[in-house]
């Protein structure tokens, strides 16, 4: 049974949260100005997801 304070996330949910949090942190640390930051955060978030899903598919044949 899951205690009330325990989080249960799927692999994809954990990856999305990870990508979002890291993108925001990188965007604020490496860029100045709201426009540049927003663009960097969005671009970085999309790349995190695409590369994550791509690596997942690249490993798929080895799991069978």
């Amino acid at each position: 049974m899951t205690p009330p304070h325990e989080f249960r996330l799927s692999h994809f949910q954990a990856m999305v949260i990870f990508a979002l949090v890291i993108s925001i942190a990188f965007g604020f640390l490496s860029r100045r100005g709201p426009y540049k930051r927003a663009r960097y955060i969005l671009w970085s978030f999309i790349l995190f997801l695409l590369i994550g899903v791509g690596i997942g598919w690249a490993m798929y044949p080895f799991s069978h």
Partner: protein
Amino acid sequence: MPDEVPVAETTDAVPVAQAVSPYPEPAQDRHRRDALALTIAAAAWLLPGLGHALLKMWGRALVCFSTVALLVILGAGMRGNIFSRNGEDAFAKLGYVADLGAGSFYFVAKALEPAGPDVSHANGDYGTRLLATAGVLNMLAALHAYEVARARKA
């Protein structure tokens, strides 16, 4: 004799662009700034966001604090492994270094996990990664605050 002498011929003053101090920074000032930068880096490591707050970079301070806090809360809530000093192998030792990077939040994570880690499920494994990420992210933020304090970055 002309009444007005052209300005360029009156003085041999250097142009404005070259008027910036050509002298190196005094060693005492440099040492003081280095010491201040180290103090800010230590503060940034100890409490995420504090280094940037001391530098009056409020947005970055808020983001550093909230992202590290969120990762620690999620990682501990997913019952990720918080490595201790007595790691058996190199990976456990590296994990300890990464976890310790979160500064005081390392102990917060321990306090949030009274039942201890559970890596028998994938969920706990994801939590371990999130906790390590929180530590590494905080170290990166502390390094950024250090560089800003040394006036190497904006």
